[in-house]
Structures are given as C-alpha cells and as structure tokens.
C-alpha cells in the first residue's frame, strides 16, 4: 500500500431537501487501490461519488483529491456515471461519446482534433469496441454501452477513476472484460472507486472496500474487513450465507 492519500473526505454531510442522505462521512482512500463501495439501496453510494466530484454540493464537510480541492484536480479524475443516467437515443456515435472524455483537458471552446481522435480510437480498441465506432449509440447493447462509457473514462487518462455501477445490466463476458481492464489500471498505479452491488464478487474483484449506509460503517482492505459482522451492520440482516469463503 502506498502512503499517499488519493482521496480524503472529512465530515461530509449531504442532504436532499434537508433530509441527510450522507451523514458525517470520514473516508480516506490510499493511492493505488481498487475499491468497492457497497451498501443497500438508498445508502448514498452514488451521492458520495457525486459529492466528491462536485456534482452535488454538500451541506458540510470537505473533500480533497491528492491533497487539493477537486476543482484544482479535475484533470486527474475520470468519471463513469450510471448507464441509465443518460438518454441513449441522443443523436451521436460511439466514437463521439468516447471523444467527450477528452473535453475536460481541452477546456472551454477548443475542439477535439486529430490527437484526441487517435486517443479515443485507442480507448475503443482497449474495450474491444473499435468496430462499433460509427454505430449510433442506441444501436448498442447494454454491455456495449457500458464499454463505451469505460472507454470514455480511459481516454481521460486520469489517476483516479470513479465508476457508478459499471456492471449493471451487462452480460458475463462484458463483466469479465471490464474487471480485467480495472485490474490493469490498478496495476498501472491508478486508484479506482467503484459502486458495486454484487457482494459475491467483492473478494474476487476488489482489494479495498467501503461499507456505506448513510453513515460509513467501515473501510479498509477486503481481506481484513469484508466479514459477516460489517455486512450485517451495513445491510441490517444476517449475511452469513453471502460470504461463505
């Protein structure tokens, strides 16, 4: 484990209409981990990610990315939103969606050029979608759409990747392809934070885990803290069956 902190969250509280959805969260994520955020529906998993990325304004607390506020570190961070959060009937192609990943480094007004296009094509190849580059995005299957989103994050060439349920609604092949890419990224020293639903696969896919249910229950290495005790605390029911190792 690297000593450097990739993400540090202090006393974070987020509320929708004055109802807290995240309550006094302290979280430190070391650099170079592949971390799952797990917790029941409504636990605030997506909200936590969105707050770190400045998409939602918290009512209290502070967040830093490698020791500085997110605004200053934008270019170090890539984000994969939930697949269902966008309209896939939008008139655009797979390549064009991936190109959007380059917009951040371009800044306002400047258009993507040959360099950006080349990077986007490479990212498409990495996720095995190069032959679909001109396909209209509504003509892609759920798994293919998720790969496009992953390619869009890859093209950002970030140090930290946030992913909101990248395995939702994808077939088994795509799931394996995605997790292999995530593991490759970790090997390259990147930090990955993934909202994850399938508890069965946590020990196999991840090396770090955060249990969340409005409050933070626990965070740390999977081998130390992924146990029945924390699962029960998080989900409120006995999870013995789920993690028979």
């Amino acid at each position, binding site marked *: 484990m690297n000593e450097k902190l990739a993400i540090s969250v202090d006393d974070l509280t987020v509320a929708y*209409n004055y109802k807290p959805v995240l309550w006094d969260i302290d979280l430190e994520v070391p650099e170079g981990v592949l971390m799952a955020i797990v917790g029941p529906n409504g636990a605030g998993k997506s909200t936590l990610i*969105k707050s770190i*990325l*400045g*998409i939602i304004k918290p009512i209290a607390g502070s967040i830093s990315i490698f020791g500085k506020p997110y*605004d200053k570190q*934008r270019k170090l*961070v890539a*984000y994969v*939103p939930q697949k269902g*959060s*966008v*309209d896939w009937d*939008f*008139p*655009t*192609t797979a390549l064009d*969606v991936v190109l*959007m990943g380059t*917009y*951040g480094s*371009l*800044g*306002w*007004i400047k*258009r*993507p050029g040959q360099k950006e296009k080349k990077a986007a094509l490479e990212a498409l190849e990495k996720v095995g979608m190069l032959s679909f580059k001109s396909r*209209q995005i*509504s*003509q892609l*299957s759920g*798994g*293919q759409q998720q790969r496009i989103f992953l390619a*869009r994050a890859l093209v950002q060439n970030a140090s930290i990747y946030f992913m909101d349920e990248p395995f939702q609604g994808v*077939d088994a*092949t795509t799931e394996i392809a995605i997790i292999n890419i995530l593991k490759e990224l970790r090997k390259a020293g990147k930090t990955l934070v993934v909202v994850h639903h399938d508890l069965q696969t946590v020990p196999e896919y991840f090396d770090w885990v955060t249990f969340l249910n409005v409050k933070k229950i626990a965070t740390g290495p999977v081998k130390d803290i992924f146990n029945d005790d924390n699962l029960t605390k998080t989900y409120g029911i006995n999870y013995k069956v789920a993690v028979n190792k």
Partner: protein
Amino acid sequence: MSNPQLEIQLIAAIVAVACAIPGVFLVLRKMALISDAISHSILPGIVIGFFITQDLNSPLLILFAALTGVITVILVEVIQKTGLVKEDTAIGLVFPTMFSIGVILIAKNANDIHLDVDAVLLGELAFAPFDRMFISGMDMGPKSLWVMGGVLLVSITLLILFFKELKVSTFDVGLSSALGFSPVVLHYGLMSVSSVTIVGAFDAVGAILVVALMIAPAATAYLLTNDLKRMLVLSVVFGVFSAIAGYWLAHLLDASISGSMTTVLGIVFLLVYLFAPKKGLISVLYRQKQQRTEVSLITFLLHLNNHTEKSERHINHLQEHINWQKVRSKSVVDLALKNNMITIDNHIVSLTEKGKEFTGKALDYILTNRDDKIENIKDDFFLFRG
C-alpha cells in the same frame, strides 16, 4: 416578386433559422414546453419595455423582455424545487400568470400602444416591411430584418463556440459537471438565447406559433438522423423551407402568413413521421411485422431441429402442432423456403444445411444472449437488430 414580398420571405426564413437552432437543444433536453412558457411570459416584459423605449424593435426592449423569459425559467425551477408541485404543473402555473399580466397591461394602455392581443398571439409578418430602419436618411430595409439578423448572428456564434459544451451537457449532465463545464451556466445560456430569439421572433410570428418554429423542425430532423450536426442542419433546412412555402401558401389562400408557415411545418413533420426510413411509423410497423414473422420462423426451425421423426415433420401436423393459423403457417413456410432453409419432400419438411446452421446460431444466441454471436446474422434479419 415585389420587394416587400422578398423582404417578408427573408425575414420569415431568418426567424425560422434563429428558432431552429436553440429548438434542437430544447427538444434533446426534453424541454420543448419551456419554449411555450417563455413565449407567453415575455409579454409583460415586451409591454413594459415598450413603455420605456416606445419602440417595438429596440434592442433594449428585446433584452428586457428576454429577461422576463429567463425569470420565468427560474420561477418554474424554484416552484418545482419546493417538491410540492411537479415541473409540468409549475410551467402551467407560471406562464399563464405572466401572460395575463401582459394582457391586462395592454388592455389598460390600449391607446398608447401599438399592440393588440391578436398580433401578440399570431404575429403579423405582412406588416414587417412597413417598419423600416433609416441610417442618416438612408433606407436600410425593414427593422425586424436587422433585429432578427442580429439575433441569428449571436446565436450562430455561440453555437459554434460552445457546440462541444452544449453537446456534452445535453447528453450527460453528470460528466459535464465533473469535467468543469457547469451545466447551470450552459442551461441558463441556452435559456437566454431561447428567450432573446423568441422575443425577436415574437413580432413576426406571435406567442403561439413561435413554439412551432422552435420545436417542429427539430422534432422532424430528429426522425431522420443520428448525428447532432446533421440534426441542426436539417432543422434549419426544414425551417427555411416551411417559411418560404408557408409564405406562398398564405399568398395562395389569402390567409395569415405565420399560420400557413406553421401548417407547412405540421405537414412536413407528418410526412417525415410516416415515411422516415428508419424511425418513421410505416418503417417501424413494417419492422415489427417482419420481426413477428422471424420469431415464428425461428420457432418453426427449432421445432424441426428438435424432431427427427417423420410424423413430427409432416406439413399438416406442423400446422396442428405449433398451433398456428393457416395464413401464418404458409407465410412462415414460404419464408423458410425462400431462404433455402427447408426442403419439402412429399409433405415432409426437412432442414437444409443452411437451415441447420442458422438454427444453431440462433439457438446459440438465445441461450447465451451474447452479442458477438449474432453480429453476422444481424444484416439478414430484423429480429436481431435491436
């Protein structure tokens, strides 16, 4: 063609283009109704602006009225954010209130103002050439031509500068925000441009028809393309075509120009809605019918695949067994024969090699649900094209 005729068509075309551009983004953001709200709410802004400037084409009046439009959008959002009413209800509450304030202001000051409610609702393009702009005594053409030309120029410049930002914030708000392109700034930018455009077009086409000019070209173009740039170009083409065709329709019928323009827009949309090659109604219905037949075909082939015994493969037995009506059985058998998937020998149906191969592939796909299994048969069959 006389000079005023040409001028009217030119103004109509420029109004159409200026409306079509923000219209594309409103349609893609599912905010079409907001244009309706803005177009009605700017009325009090126009009336009050007129009290101050005494000139319906003054840039100051346009900015003032456009501000009312933006305030409307903010009001709708504020009401909606309380969580007590939904967005459509909030829109339905705000714009009639604003509009009626405008109507009362006009009625109370009818003597001082060259506005009547008819013109407010429907506009009056025919009079546009009468209000001319003079620079040191030189006739520079109709004022509204200059006003709308200016609005269009600003709108196109902003579109070119911020195309990528508008695209990403329309497609994916979360990413746009994470990348540092504030969706709030872009939203209000778009709302401001829409408001200015609507105010500029108001004089020519009125509060109700301006909505059609914003929404119809974009909705029509959406059915024809999968590319945002092409959608913008097509919207502009449809807008200009309807403006000019509408002018001549009005000429022919001796009717309202703006009414005729909108009618043409409606007809163009209807034609595209019915006949668009991929997203058109007829094409969709045809595809559905094909898919039904193809599902039947696969069911039929799978049945043949599962049964080697002759008694199960007799043509009459098949009809009874799969429990289809005669017409359907016949069309399915014909389709299979046409594709060389089966042979019929003395009323006994057998799969050909091609039929076996296809059935195998289809089965593979049905069992695994893996996309790569069907990439190569997608071209031949509607069923697998999603």
